[in-house]
């Protein structure tokens, strides 16, 4: 299956990524090769096979719903690229 520019742009938008002309070319080429290669799985008969959706051996691990200390405000904001005293800051969302 060929990953063309329209499809790449669509996936890139969903992934919140963007590519210039040169990088897009390389990405389309690599992705097409990889997608063609994984299509090999079509050869495997999986009729009646349930998808395997979890690898954990533990089922419904529950605990008491107790209030415990969590990351405090200061620590949570410490790594923010832009913040004020109480909030993360981002560009204006509403006009």
């Amino acid at each position, binding site marked *: 299956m060929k990953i063309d520019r329209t499809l790449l742009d669509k996936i*890139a938008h969903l992934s919140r*990524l963007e590519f210039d002309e040169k990088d897009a070319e390389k990405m389309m080429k690599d992705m097409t090769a*990889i997608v063609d290669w994984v299509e090999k*799985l*079509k050869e495997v008969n999986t009729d009646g096979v349930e998808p395997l959706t979890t690898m954990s051996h533990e089922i419904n691990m529950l605990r008491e719903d107790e209030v415990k200390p969590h990351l405090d405000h200061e620590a*949570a904001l410490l*790594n923010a690229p832009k913040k004020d005293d109480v909030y993360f800051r981002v560009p204006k969302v509403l006009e």
Partner: protein
Amino acid sequence: MRTYATFREIQHDLQRGALTCQDLVRHHLSNIEKKSHLNAFLSVFPEEALERASLIDQKIKNGTAGKLAGLVVGIKDVLAYTGHPLQASSKILNGFISQFNATAVQRLLDADAIIIGRQNCDEFAMGSSNESSAFGPVLNDADNTRVPGGSSGGSAVAVQADLCQISLGSDTGGSVRQPAAFCGLVGLKPTYSRISRYGLIAYGSSFDCIGIFAKCVEDVAVVLEVIAGADDEDSTVSRLPVPQYAEELSRTLSKSYKVAYVREIDDAEGLQPEIRDAIQRKLDHIKNAGHSVDVIDFPLQEYVLPTYYILATAEASSNLSRYDGVRYGYRSPQTTDLQSLYKKSRSEGFGKEVQKRILLGTFVLSASYYDAYYTKAQKVRRLIREKTKDILKQYDFIVMPITPTTAFKIGTHTDNPLEMYLADLFSVQANVAGVPAIAVPCGEDKLGLPIGLQVIADDFQESKLLHFSDALTKMN
């Protein structure tokens, strides 16, 4: 100071007063300095490690030291260590400081291990050569023109070059075993969920395992028994009791283990003949030691790697959506609105291999392709897991190479992603099936580069696996 082959010898010398933890830390710091060209460490914590060493020396004198007193550890740059930088070798986490300890790290500290630094790796643990790090490649200490393997390349080289006694890495598709093979080390990927993933930067959550690099099986055993087991912070971690792995190593080995060897792997195109020969010689030793070896068929072999790449990239695309330039890490200075903040921060912050995997994952999860790729791969994963478990019902172990070749030259596969992915051809089966697997040294090729042998066991059979691999390292 001499280089210690085992942690047991270190403890022995510490106890009789012939050695101090400070000596050990100084020894490793001096090696780190001498071998800085290897680029194995992204941060080193000299003052802190020495201070801790002095504290633990005192504890040894007082008889109050923990089980891992004197163990100098390096951690891959995917494990959280409070107050220290953590960035998965990615620009997108520039400046990030951990606000808590990973459970595995906490347990090492509680047992009086000393953490000496943070180790280079492929960006977000995606790679097989350690060439995709934002901080440059790591060099193999056996030959500086060659890669150390990946993604935990820095962690492997650090043990190889005696920059620390053991390292913690992570293994999603072979990222501990493959570099262990390229560097001549023991490398364990335990059963999925044996070790808590709390504080491990997520790549493919249904595959990710913390793994251990060491010079010998014994050191792996003693570390595993400390860091494995139930944890309130990880709802997927196994609650099964943790055996005393180190103690169990001294039991008498079963006289007659049943070992399976996969025909499709022996026939694999691109398997370096010297690796095939080295494994055959080891299989002869195994037979001579009284165990049986049968050649078996695993016709799903060729589907394991494509299954892995569909599912791991899908999980990665979801896990890596959290890096958005808002709450931590890199934010592009070019942003005009929220949308461009996300797109520019991610496009400038992530390297190209990571972006490729995010795109692939997003593609296989997108509405039009979900069933054809993602669901299909989950079905094949079930078949692979069932077939692998069927073999392990009849046999104690599956033995196979870890890598198709020994360490390759830097730059060999960087232009062709599929070639690079094939480096994981033999290691991914254990991750897709969730079972434990270990790399042990198995001779050298004619250039003197290490060859690794892989042993796979059934779920939670680490005791048996370690026991047998320990014996393997001593069979000559």
